[in-house]
């Protein structure tokens, strides 16, 4: 049994929402912890530490990843997008606006992960069918809404993004 914490901090640099961050971190530090604790971006939520609930979803070089399953060091040099970067110049991203308007959230804890997952979906499939929406969202758990408001929000966001 080790009685001393592992030393050996490493400098990790990433670009988050267009801003450069460099912080000293242990190689074991998860991206979710790096974002929350080193960058102060607490919009990325941790619900299960296992990659199941999807609350910690962020985008790394455009791809959606589970930040609770990703070591920060493994994405050094990457471009990361979190929920805090979605709105531009005080204007909500259409997905954010649609989640508000269509009541796609209750407690809001799972919401950031859903927003990034839906943004990714609508970039790939601008007019998804209900089945495509449900399948794309099946890696994100919402315990409050029963998914009805979320479905309505995705349909509404798809329309907003096409006009």
């Amino acid at each position, binding site marked *: 049994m080790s*009685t001393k914490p592992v030393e050996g901090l490493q400098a990790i640099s990433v670009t988050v929402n267009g801003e450069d961050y460099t912080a000293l971190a242990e190689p074991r530090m998860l991206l979710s912890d790096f974002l929350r604790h080193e960058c102060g971006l607490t919009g990325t939520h941790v619900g299960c530490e296992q990659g*199941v609930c999807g609350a910690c979803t962020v985008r790394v070089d455009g791809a959606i990843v589970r930040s609770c399953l990703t070591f920060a060091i493994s994405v050094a040099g990457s471009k990361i997008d979190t*929920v805090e970067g979605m709105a531009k110049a005080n204007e909500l991203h259409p997905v954010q*606006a649609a989640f508000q308007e269509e009541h796609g959230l209750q*407690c809001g804890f*799972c919401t*950031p992960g859903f927003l990034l997952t839906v943004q990714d979906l609508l970039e790939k499939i601008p007019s998804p069918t209900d089945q495509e929406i449900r399948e794309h969202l099946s890696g994100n758990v919402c315990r409050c809404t*029963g*998914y009805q408001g979320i479905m309505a929000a995705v349909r509404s966001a798809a329309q907003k993004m096409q006009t």
Partner: protein
Amino acid sequence: MSEKKLKYVGTRPIRHDGVDKVLGKANFGADLNLPGMLHGKILRSPHAHAKIISINTAKAEALDGVLAVITGDDFPPPPSGKGSVEGPQDFGDMARNVMAREKALYTGHAIAAVAATTTRIAEIALKAIEVEYEVLEPVMTLERALAPDAPILHEEMRAKGEEPLPEGPTNVATRTVMGFGDVDEGFSSADVVVEREFTTETVHQGYIEPHAVVARSISDGRAEVYCCTQGQFMVRKYCSKVLDMDPTQIKVTASEIGGGFGGKTVVYAEPVSIVLARKSGRPVKIVMSREEVFIATGPTSGSHIRVKIGVKNDGTITAADATLNYEAGAFKGSPVMAGMMTIFSPYRMDHVRIEGFDVVVNKPKVAAYRAPGAPMAAFATEGVMDELASQLGMDPVDLRLVNAVKEGDTAAYGPKFKVHGFIDTLQAVKNHPHYKAPLGPNQGRGIACGFWFNAGMQSSANVILNEDGNATVVTGNPDIGGSRTSMALMAAEELGIPVDKIRPVVADTESVGYSDLTGGSRVTFATGMAVVEAAKDVVRQLRERAAQTWDVSVDDVEWRDGHAVAMNGHADDHEPLSVAALAGSAAKTGGPISGRASLNARGPGPGFATHICDVEVDKETGRVSVLRYTAVQDVGRAIHPSYVEGQMQGGAVQGIGWALNEAYMYDEKGKLQNPSFLDYRMPVASDMPMIDTVIVEVPNPTHPYGVRGVGETPIVPPLPAVAHAVNQATGVRFRSLPISPPRVLAALDD
């Protein structure tokens, strides 16, 4: 009940907390950091049942970066005697649940805790704590708990309640009996009698946000706590009991709450973080892992229920009899009483007997879970009703219509019902296209009803009129399902100003009057009443200011659509004055204007629902797919219809998860085998169909806008509704949950 047309109540504005939540700026329990803050971790028992012989913390304390290590010895003795029990809470038990003393009573029971400069050091320190246990046989089922030779969890516990009771040490905490009439006579006049047994497993609320707290100890003995909770005043009171402090020595601020469903109605890490903060002299943050949430916070009871109902050939119930056994977990206090109070309440009966046992087992102490105790009770009663309908050759809705309680009927648990919309929900189901839609092969349809009495209790509100004419609505209830906007809607209606000119705020324990926690579907009802009263107080003052301005009697001033209007011959002399005008001149007419109300709300009004569920059963894999679902509920009045629909949909989906997949699975040593979202599988979007909702509005006469509690009732009907649909699809009656693929396959093979 005012019949005037409502301008704001019943509309669907965007929630006030929505922007921060979609921007990622809302602050949840784990989001606060304080200067100098330490990280706390809790050592948890690896044994389900064990005596704690010794705890040696010396090696942990010696580690660099460890500033405090605590055990049960660092807490005051668990409360006993006067003041140690309040309603369902026994604070002595709560203290032992927060930190084990003599015994570990479930795998995950807190044994010790550390505070260190990093979570990593805290984790290492936990491993350095040496605990010697004497491992005892765990009691993991009701059957084992009730066996004559069962190991006893609490040697000092004696059964309470109605005789006959077990003598000497027992795992039965209470036996309760209620009812009226003569059931033997009732059954003797029945044409058909069905008696069945039902079981359900331990299930968790499954809120996505793990419990999180930051505590700070202040030098004069006070403490400040920031945490995700359903009740800041509850945290204050419970911490004060467990830590032998005065409630006002503790200030509690509720963060945004990432779901609770009843699970955040007691304290776990909050008192631990206060003790660590006191001992270390630094702020301490504790954030539970998902595994800790599963093994060490309160799920709801596993249950065994026997139900016997007799009916005449026309469907009229002649008698009903039930025995309910509910697991309380490691300490007494299952929701068996609520199960008893709801089990037969939808139906009129002259002869009824209900017996309930509260039984301790070596699992985490249960906490509230959405209509606590009612879903499993409904699973049993509705299951028997469905079978009776089938034996009588009656439509299952018609059988309910024959027996449904009406205004003036006596509920099986005693009180007389006031006006409600149960029959309206049944009629709505019969008239819904879903009820008559064709079904394909391997598909089935089930209906089931649910009842929940809802709560009133204590609430406070302040309505503050600001100098710009906007209002701040301050309450003491964490907003778990959209209540802030519902409060704003009711205040808007009273004041006559748009809902976006109202800012609803959830205040800390030093900034608003006492409020019972957010639970029992009580906030829109009870806190809503307080908001309406406080807003009326503001309107009264606005009328006085207008009267003073115009030099008329206050009786000559009416409040209409956000304006003071001169009446009784003064109308021609004075233009109406708006809220903004009166607020702007307040300094000259007597100073700031604010209203307040504190009350104990009575008459919450029962909630009734009827649900329709269609399933398809894959006979190769045993998988049950829900194809279509319709939830119909009497909500009194929907203040914000989208939130009401959201409660109905969310509750239905939680119930479907309980029916089909969710269950705690223990090994023979009492270790939970599935303490993760991977293995405790909750419904995701691709598992669910559209959940259709039908809002029935039969106003509750005791609320100014007719509100009934909404949030809990929707989880009551799904368990039986799903089971009945599976029965129609397969011909098999499932009386044990979950109806998971292995069980379906096994049943089909038989």
